C-alpha cells in the first residue's frame, strides 16, 4: 500500500514524459493507476470485513516515533474506494475535457499527485503522516485551482483556498500534537484501541477546538465556506474530483475517524450539529442565487458537507448509518453532476443555465445522465440518494440536542436542494432552444463514461443495495465511525413515517420553488447589499490588514540599510546572551596562561587585522584585513589539529574575499556618513558584543553538564560508518539529515542572491519589474 501511494508521486512526476510518449492516450494510461488500486482495495475488502482493521507498518524514523504506517479499516476502505473509483472516472473524463490543451502534462502531474496525497491521507495511521498528506492535498489543490494561471481570478481563488485551508492546517497540526500528547501515542490505531477516555482529559477542549478548526476550513463549513465556490475557477474535472467528491471531505473524514474517541460530549454534539446545520442551510440558500451551473453545484456541495458534519454531531447509530450512506450517495451523484456541468460548458461555451435550453434533442445521453444524477440529488426513489436523505431526516428527528433547529434546517435545505436539482436537470435540457456561444453536440465517449458510471451506480445501488455489497461495505464503515458493531441494512421502503412525509412535502414545495425560480432570484437580488458583509468580506479585510502590517514593519525593520540590520541583530543577541550569562549563570573567568609563543603571534595578527579593518579608510584594505583574520583562524584550527576545519575555513575565507571584492567595485565612493554619536553607539554595541562572546566562551568552557559524545563518535565512526574522518562521517552519516537541511538552505540562499541580482540587472536594461522594485535601495554604505 505504501508502495502504491509513493508510486502515485513517481507517476505524477513522470507525467510530462508520459505525455510526450503517449500523447492523448496518457489520461487513459494514468487512469489505470487508480483503477488498479481500487481493484487491490476491493480484494482486501473481505479481509477487512471479517478480521477488522488491517495495519501495514513501515518504520521510517523509529528514533522519533515516525513511521509510514497505513491503517485499512471500513472507513478508510470506503474513502479509498471513492478516491480511486471517482479518480478513474475523472482521469478518463479529463482526457476528453482537456483534449489538446497545451499544458495537460501539468494538469496530470498535479491531479495524480493529489490522488496519491488523498489516498495517503485516508490511509495514514500516524498523526504526523496524516498531517503531511493533509497539507499535500492543500498544495495540489492550490495548483489545480490556479491551473489557468494567466487568469487573475483563478490565481486569486487559488490563493484564497490555500490560505484558508493552510491556516486551518496550522490549527490541525496543533490539534494533532495535542492529541498525541494527551493520548501518549502517535498512531491512530493505538489511540482508537486504547481504553483511556480522552473526553475526560484536561487537554480535551483545546485539542478539539484545534482539530475542528482544521476540519471546518478544509471541509468548507460555515463561516469558512466562501473559498469553495471560488475554487470553481479550476477546470471542471478538478471541481468534480477535489471540490465535491474527495478533498473537501478530508475534514469530514478526520471528524469521522476521531468520532469514536472524541465524540459524544456536549461540546462535540452542539458545535458539530449547529455548525453543520447552519452550513447545510447556508449552502442550499446561496445555491438558488446563482445561475452559473458550477456555482450552483458548489453551494449544493457545501450543503452536503454541512449535512455530513451535522450527522457526525448527532452521533446516534441512526446518524452514523445515515452518514456513511449519504457520504457514498453524495460523492457519486455530485461527481456525475459536475462532469455533466463540464460537458455543458464544454459543448455550449457558457456556464449560465438560463442561457441554455432544449439541449435534450442534441445531447440525449448527457440529458439522461443529468436526470438520473439530479434525481439522486433531490432524493427521489428509487435512487440511492433517496435512501441517504430518508436516513438523514430520520437522524435529525432523533437528535437529542437542538432537535427542532436541526429538523427545521434539514427540511428547508431539502426544499432548496430539490429546486437546485430541478434547475440542473431540467433547465438546460427542456424548453426552447437558446443560441449559445458554441453549437452543442453530444459529448465524446470519454466524457460520458465517468458520469454515466456514477449516475447508473446511484440507480443500481438504490434498487439493490444489499446485492452489490453496499451493505457489507457500509456496515464496516459505520462500525469504524461509531466505534462499536453497527450492522447496516439498507432498503428503499421503511414504511410511512414522519421522514417520508417530510420528503414528499419538500418535494412538492421544491418543485414549486423551481417553477418560480426566475422571480425568486429577482427578489433575492435585492439582498445583495447585505450579502456583501459575509465572511468573505472578513477574509478580505484580514488579508489587507496583514499586507498593511507587513508594509509597516518592513519600513521599520527592513529598510535596506545594512548597518541597521546588523545593529538590530547584535542588540537582540546581546540581550539574549547577556540575560542567560549574567542572570542565569555566573560568568567564569578561569584564565590559565598556558599558551605557547606561536599561538600568541597568531592571535596578535588576528587582533591587528580586526583593528585595521575598523579604522581603514579603504574598502579593499578592510576586506583584506578581515581576510587576514580569517586565515589566522584557519591557522589556529590547524595548530589544534583540526585539518578539516582548517581547510574549510581557508576556502570559505577565500570565497568570501572574492565575493566581497566583486561587490566592492559596485559601491559608491567611501565617505563618512555617521555622526560621532552614531559611531559611539555602534562602537559600544560592538564592544559589548565582543565582551559578551568572550564571557560566553569562558563560561561554556567551564560548564561540564553533559558527557561529551565525541568519544562515541571516535570509537564508532570506523566500525559503524566505514570512515576514519570523523568530521565527514558526522556530516554525511551521523547527522546527514541536518546536512540535507543545510543543503536546502544553501540552495535557497543562492537562488535568492541570484534572483536579486538578476532583478536589478533587469531594471538596468529597462525591463523594470513594476510594483516590486528591487527591495534594496542603498544596500551598502560607507
Amino acid at each position: 500500500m505504501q508502495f502504491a501511494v509513493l508510486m502515485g508521486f513517481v507517476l505524477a512526476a513522470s507525467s510530462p514524459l508520459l505525455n510526450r510518449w503517449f500523447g492523448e492516450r496518457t489520461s487513459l494510461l494514468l487512469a489505470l493507476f487508480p483503477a488498479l488500486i481500487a481493484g487491490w482495495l476491493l480484494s482486501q475488502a473481505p479481509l477487512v470485513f471479517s478480521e477488522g482493521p488491517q495495519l501495514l507498518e513501515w518504520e521510517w524514523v523509529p528514533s522519533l516515533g515516525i513511521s509510514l504506517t497505513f491503517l485499512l479499516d471500513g472507513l478508510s476502505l470506503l474513502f479509498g474506494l471513492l478516491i480511486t473509483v471517482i479518480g478513474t472516472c475523472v482521469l478518463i473524463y479529463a482526457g476528453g475535457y482537456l483534449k489538446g490543451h497545451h499544458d495537460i502534462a501539468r494538469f496530470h502531474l498535479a491531479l495524480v499527485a493529489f490522488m496519491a496525497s488523498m489516498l495517503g491521507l485516508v490511509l495514514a495511521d500516524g498523526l504526523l503522516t496524516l498531517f503531511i498528506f493533509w497539507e499535500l492535498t492543500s498544495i495540489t489543490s492550490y495548483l489545480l485551482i490556479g491551473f489557468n494561471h494567466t487568469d487573475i481570478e483563478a490565481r486569486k481563488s487559488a490563493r484564497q483556498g490555500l490560505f484558508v485551508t493552510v491556516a486551518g492546517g496550522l490549527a490541525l497540526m496543533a490539534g494533532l500534537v495535542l492529541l498525541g500528547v494527551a493520548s501518549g501515542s502517535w498512531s491512530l490505531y493505538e489511540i482508537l484501541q486504547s481504553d483511556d477516555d480522552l473526553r475526560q482529559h484536561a487537554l480535551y477542549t483545546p485539542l478539539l477546538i484545534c482539530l475542528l478548526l482544521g476540519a471546518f476550513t478544509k471541509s468548507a463549513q460555515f463561516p469558512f465556506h466562501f473559498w469553495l465556490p471560488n475554487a470553481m475557477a479550476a477546470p471542471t474535472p478538478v471541481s468534480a474530483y477535489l471540490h465535491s467528491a474527495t478533498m473537501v471531505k478530508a475534514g469530514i473524514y478526520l471528524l469521522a475517524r476521531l468520532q469514536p474517541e472524541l465524540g459524544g460530549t456536549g461540546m462535540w454534539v452542539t458545535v458539530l450539529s449547529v455548525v453543520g446545520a447552519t452550513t447545510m442551510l447556508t449552502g442550499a440558500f446561496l445555491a438558488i442565487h446563482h445561475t452559473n451551473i458550477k456555482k450552483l453545484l458548489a453551494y449544493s456541495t457545501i450543503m452536503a458537507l454541512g449535512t455530513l458534519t451535522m450527522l457526525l454531531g448527532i452521533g446516534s447509530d441512526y446518524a452514523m448509518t445515515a452518514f456513511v450512506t449519504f457520504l457514498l450517495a453524495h460523492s457519486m451523484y455530485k461527481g456525475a453532476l459536475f462532469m455533466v456541468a463540464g460537458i455543458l460548458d464544454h459543448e455550449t461555451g457558457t456556464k449560465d443555465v438560463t442561457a441554455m435550453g432544449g439541449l435534450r434533442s442534441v445531447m440525449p445521453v448527457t440529458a439522461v445522465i443529468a436526470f438520473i444524477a439530479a434525481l439522486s440529488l433531490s432524493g427521489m426513489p428509487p435512487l440511492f440518494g433517496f435512501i441517504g436523505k430518508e436516513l438523514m431526516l430520520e437522524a435529525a428527528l432523533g437528535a437529542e440536542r437542538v432537535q427542532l433547529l436541526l429538523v427545521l434546517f434539514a427540511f428547508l435545505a431539502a426544499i432548496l436542494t430539490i429546486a437546485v436539482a430541478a434547475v440542473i436537470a431540467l433547465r438546460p435540457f427542456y424548453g426552447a432552444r437558446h443560441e449559445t456561444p458554441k453549437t452543442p453536440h453530444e459529448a465524446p465517449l470519454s466524457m460520458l463514461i465517468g458520469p454515466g458510471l456514477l449516475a447508473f451506480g446511484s440507480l443500481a445501488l438504490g434498487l439493490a443495495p444489499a446485492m452489490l455489497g453496499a451493505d457489507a461495505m457500509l456496515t464496516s464503515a459505520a462500525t469504524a465511525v461509531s466505534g462499536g458493531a453497527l450492522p447496516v441494512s439498507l432498503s428503499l421502503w421503511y414504511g410511512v413515517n414522519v421522514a417520508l412525509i417530510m420528503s414528499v412535502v419538500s418535494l412538492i414545495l421544491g418543485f414549486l420553488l423551481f417553477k418560480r425560480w426566475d422571480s425568486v432570484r429577482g427578489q433575492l437580488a435585492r439582498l445583495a447589499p447585505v450579502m456583501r458583509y459575509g465572511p468573505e468580506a472578513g477574509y478580505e479585510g484580514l488579508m489587507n490588514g496583514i499586507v498593511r502590517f507587513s508594509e509597516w514593519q518592513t519600513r521599520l525593520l527592513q529598510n535596506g540599510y545594512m548597518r541597521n540590520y546588523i545593529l538590530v541583530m547584535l542588540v537582540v543577541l546581546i540581550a539574549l546572551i547577556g540575560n542567560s550569562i549574567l542572570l542565569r549563570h555566573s560568568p567564569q573567568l578561569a584564565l590559565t596562561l598556558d599558551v605557547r609563543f606561536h599561538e600568541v603571534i597568531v592571535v596578535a595578527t588576528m587582533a591587528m587585522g580586526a583593528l585595521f579593518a575598523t579604522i581603514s579608510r579603504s574598502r579593499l584594505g578592510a576586506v583584506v584585513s578581515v581576510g587576514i583574520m580569517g586565515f589566522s583562524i584557519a591557522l589556529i584550527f590547524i595548530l589544534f589539529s583540526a585539518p578539516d576545519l582548517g581547510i574549510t575555513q581557508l576556502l570559505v575565507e577565500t570565497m568570501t574575499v572574492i565575493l566581497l571584492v566583486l561587490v566592492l567595485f559596485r559601491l559608491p565612493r567611501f565617505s563618512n556618513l555617521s555622526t560621532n554619536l552614531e559611531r559611539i553607539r555602534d562602537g559600544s554595541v560592538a564592544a559589548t558584543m565582543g565582551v559578551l562572546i568572550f564571557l560566553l566562551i569562558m563560561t561554556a568552557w567551564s560548564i561540564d553538564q553533559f558527557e561529551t559524545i565525541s568519544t562515541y563518535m571516535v570509537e564508532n565512526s570506523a566500525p559503524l560508518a566505514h570512515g576514519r574522518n570523523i568530521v565527514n562521517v558526522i556530516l554525511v552519516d551521523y547527522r546527514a539529515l541536518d546536512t540535507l537541511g543545510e543543503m536546502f538552505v544553501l540552495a535557497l540562499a543562492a537562488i535568492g542572491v541570484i534572483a536579486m541580482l538578476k532583478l536589478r540587472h533587469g531594471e538596468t536594461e529597462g525591463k523594470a519589474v513594476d510594483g516590486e522594485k528591487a527591495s534594496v535601495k542603498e544596500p551598502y554604505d560607507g
Partner: protein
Amino acid sequence: MVKSGTIILNTAARFLMPLQLMFSVFLLLRGHDEPGGGFIAGLVAAGAFTLYLFAFGVSATKEVLRMVDPRDLIGAGLLFGMISVVPAWFMGQPFLTAQWWTIPVIDFKASTPLIFDIGVYLAVLGSVMGMVMALMEVDKDEP
C-alpha cells in the same frame, strides 16, 4: 569593471583549473577517511572556475561549463542528496540509514554517504558559481 587578466594570470588559470578540478574530485573521494569531503571539494572546484572567470570573463567560463547552468547544479545536488535516502527504504531500514556496496573489480567502496557527499559537492559548487557569475554579469553591464 573586472577586466580580463594579464598573460600570467591567463596562462596560470589555463593550467591550474584542470589541476584544481582533479584535486577537488580527489578531495571528494577521499573525504570519508582523510581530510576532505563534499563541502571542501565543492569550494575548491568553485575556486577553480572563479580563477578561470577572473582570467577570461563570464562568457568564456560559460563555454567551459558547457551549457551547464550553475542553478541546475544546485538542483542536481539536492536531487543527489534526496536519492541517497532511497536505498534504505528498499532495504526496509529507517530513513537515511547508510548502505555500503563494494564494487568487486576495482575494489571501490560505493555507498549512499558518497552519493550524499556528491550532492553536497554539486550544491556547494552550484551555489557559489551561481552567485559569482551573477555578480560578474552585473559588473559587465555597468561599466
